[in-house]
């Protein structure tokens, strides 16, 4: 049987505020345990929450960037359950009336086609603390520094049909929240994580299959692997005559498996109700206009501009706008070169991204700055070096050996454009290879490449390839 996979994502993006969503405690990462948990975060008797304005602004930005409706009125609700990292015994979240709903996002698939993924809603809520399971005499330690950190939970429609699409969607959201500067996107620190809802159904069937939710995936790779694993598991169960149980699962990256969380029989009776300590959040049109005026250029807008202003192809523009930093790097390079956008695009996509991938670095860690890269591209432009030699220069620059001119100078890589010198080398080679010359002249055209190779070898690749071609053709046929 052919199976269709149905996936929906719930992404938790930690909002990059200074203070918590309902208290004035710091949200800085990595502090000593419980030193950033104030009386409100600890849920001391009598304390009350007050909403952080920045959080509302950030959610509004996200709503505007995804063509969503920013709710004029949204309400905080309590989600009641007992857990030691949840000091109040309830999480303040949004239930019936989220701040953002009904949006969409376009993703680009491998074949260059685009697909629109619906965004059901994005709501504000508070993060929980952390349970540390290292041994404290067989007990668990609770650190509440993270308790009360603002989260935007972004819920997609079940529009996703493969692990690849899921990752493309997640990457797009990841890039978007960083563009908007509402989340630092740091997945290792848990600032950006994802729950995946997966079900399968026979191709052509309308109804959805029973879904499972795999929680707390904090890398693109884990999302892809967890989906693959879960899809396989579900298909096997159904094909063996079993039934899928709706449940919450955990992915173990070490074994590349998902497993069921210990089931809590009443786990779903969260007894949601409007939080009486908080009032309805009203967002006025003027507030939205204000946020709109402060919005940065969005990835899709930037992509369109790169295509129209720089003549880039859709695919290239897509790659270069994948992150705000990369796009900035590219634009800075073009500005420093003052033109040659396509050449710049090739170099950023080829050598720069290649080197970053090789070393596992982020664009912010690039060892060659846009100014340095521009220096090199200018030397390609003015024929000081060929494209091929330029790659050698780039490697040297990456290794900290100085700017393009210094590397070219110290390594003697300057392109030979002296016609007399090239002619001299050609004459020598023709004289030393009479057999090949005769064969070429008797019609074996392919040997032209042999002569080019010899010249380049002799000049250590520094001869201007166009000049070599032209002179060789003349001399060989004379």
């Amino acid at each position, binding site marked *: 049987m052919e199976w269709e996979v149905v996936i929906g994502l719930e992404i938790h993006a930690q909002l990059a505020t200074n203070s918590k969503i309902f208290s004035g405690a710091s949200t800085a990462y990595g502090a000593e345990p419980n030193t950033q948990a104030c009386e409100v975060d600890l849920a001391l008797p009598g304390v*009350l929450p*007050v909403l952080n304005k920045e959080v509302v602004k950030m959610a509004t930005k996200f709503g505007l960037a995804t063509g969503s409706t920013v709710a004029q009125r949204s309400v905080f609700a309590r989600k009641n359950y007992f857990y030691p990292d949840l000091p109040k015994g309830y999480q303040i979240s949004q239930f019936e009336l989220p701040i953002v709903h009904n949006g969409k996002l376009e993703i680009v698939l491998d074949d260059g086609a685009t697909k629109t993924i619906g965004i059901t809603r994005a709501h504000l809520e508070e993060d929980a603390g952390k349970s540390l399971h290292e041994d404290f005499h067989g007990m668990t330690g609770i650190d509440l520094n993270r308790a009360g950190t603002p989260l935007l939970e972004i819920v997609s429609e079940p529009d996703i049909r493969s692990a690849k699409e899921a990752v493309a969607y997640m990457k797009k959201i990841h890039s978007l929240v960083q563009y908007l500067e509402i989340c630092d996107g740091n997945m290792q620190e848990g600032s950006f994580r994802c729950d995946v809802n997966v079900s399968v159904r026979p191709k052509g069937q309308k109804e959805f299959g029973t879904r499972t939710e795999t929680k707390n995936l904090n890398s693109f790779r884990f999302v892809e692997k967890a989906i693959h694993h879960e899809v396989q598991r579900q298909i096997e169960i159904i094909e063996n005559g079993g039934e899928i149980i709706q449940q919450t699962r955990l992915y173990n990256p070490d074994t590349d498996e998902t497993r069921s969380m210990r089931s809590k029989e009443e786990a779903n009776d969260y007894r949601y109700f409007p939080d*009486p300590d908080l009032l309805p959040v009203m967002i006025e049109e003027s507030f939205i206009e204000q946020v709109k005026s402060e919005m940065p250029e969005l990835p899709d807008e930037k992509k369109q501009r790169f295509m129209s202003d720089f003549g880039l192809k859709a695919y290239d523009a897509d790659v270069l706008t994948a992150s705000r930093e990369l796009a900035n790097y590219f634009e800075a390079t073009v500005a420093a070169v003052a033109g040659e956008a396509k050449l710049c695009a090739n170099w950023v996509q080829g050598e720069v991204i290649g080197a970053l991938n090789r070393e596992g670095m982020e664009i912010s860690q690039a060892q060659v700055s846009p100014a340095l890269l521009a220096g090199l591209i200018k030397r390609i432009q003015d024929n000081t070096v060929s494209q091929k030699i330029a790659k050698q220069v780039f490697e040297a620059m990456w290794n900290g050996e100085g700017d393009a001119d210094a590397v070219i100078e110290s390594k003697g890589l300057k392109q030979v454009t002296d016609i007399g010198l090239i002619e001299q080398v050609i004459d020598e080679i023709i004289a030393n290879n009479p057999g090949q010359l005769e064969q070429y002249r008797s019609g074996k055209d392919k040997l032209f490449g042999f002569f080019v190779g010899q010249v380049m070898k002799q000049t250590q690749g520094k001869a201007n390839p166009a000049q070599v071609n032209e002179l060789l053709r003349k001399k060989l046929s004379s």
Partner: protein
Amino acid sequence: MMDKTLAELAQGLKNKEFSSVEVTQAHLDRIKSNDGNYNSFITVCEAEALAQAQAADAVLAKREAPVLCGVPIAHKDIFCTEGVKTTCGSKMLDNFISPYDATVVKNFKQAGVVTLGKTNMDEFAMGSSNETSFYGGVKNPWDVKKVPGGSSGGSAACVAAGLAPAATGTDTGGSIRQPAALCGITGLKPTYGRVSRYGMIAFASSLDQAGPMTRNAEDAALMLNTMAGFDPKDSTSVDREVPDYTADLNNDLSGLKIGLPKEFFGEGLDAQTEKAVQDAIVVYEKMGAKIVDISLPNSKLSVPVYYVVAPAECSSNLSRFDGVRYGHRCENPQDLEDLYKRSRGEGFGSEVKRRIMIGAYALSAGYYDAYYLKAQKLRHLIADDFKHAFSQVDVIMGPTAPSTAFGIGEKSNDPISMYLSDIYTIAVNLAGIPGMSIPAGFSNGMPVGLQIIGNYFEEARLLNVAHRFQQETDWHMRRPQ
């Protein structure tokens, strides 16, 4: 200097007739010698009170001091007081030394007011008789075989017995007004949002409101001047100017329109209580007020609505008491669930457990619409009744409670009959409007309270109406023997 009102004490301190240390010591001594009869205090803060009194005397000696500087009062043990045990009447918090001050407590400290101690109360403010306190019931100073009312029973009793000139209380369904009535003192529940709830241990967040419990309306005005005000730490606190509540106390009442809801004078009202209330109305008529018969048709449902809304909110509010970060923790928990269940099972008394369970049930899957949502809708109708009434009248009057204080143990095994003792006060909390109770006579030797209800933020008018009555009558001057 005993048995003086707050206003008289403040004046005496200004005139250097006595010092704050003297007044404070005199009250501490009386608490020590007499509170054994009433059990109105859970904690007496002798050392802290004397230190605060000394500091107040220094301020009084030097410069112009705040009006209430140096006056001692008592706080209901629901308000967090830094460095002092704050129990909320519960075993759950028997070991809880609060690391911070409630905003109300802070306001009084800043005004130089001395804290004598923390008063007894029904556990987590859930009760109408003070019998649910982990620290034992409070006895009514008018008859120690009778209850003082609740939940602010300790505050009411200590003021009635002259152990403190005034006290703070909180009112979720009548917890200031009903004990004020049963103990023969003056109590005011302000408009929801008028006084900060920060640091006041929450029972039902959308109903709780703090207010003063005093000998007379003038003192209540002085207390409210210090208590009321916007608090940026409480999202439900109202950012609205606080008037001087003493300014309008003597306003003339001629032409005042008093509404008498027929629902407050029906079945279940004790005849002598009704007579005392009617006599009080006559006093107002003599002062030129006009009586208007009105109806609050949905108020009969206020008790059922309250017993959904309040338990629902409390079931969630009390989840934080889990034995992890503070408060009672059971011995040798076997696992996490055991830690939760036994810490909470041992820490909470039976009335608290009842309400938590009712609330959890009303919010649970499949019942939410029938209970919680239904109650929130009826709450709207109840509030609309008042809105309609206040388009016709200036204040509403009636009895505070259906009878005078009942015997200790009389209703403690019958939750429903206990709940009905708040039948006239609950609707006011559901609507969020202000309400007062003032002494209006006696029935079989026990005090009767007259309830005065006003429109939103009309505390000044209530205090004016109460004060003028107290100029014409002396019920508020009577003291238990």
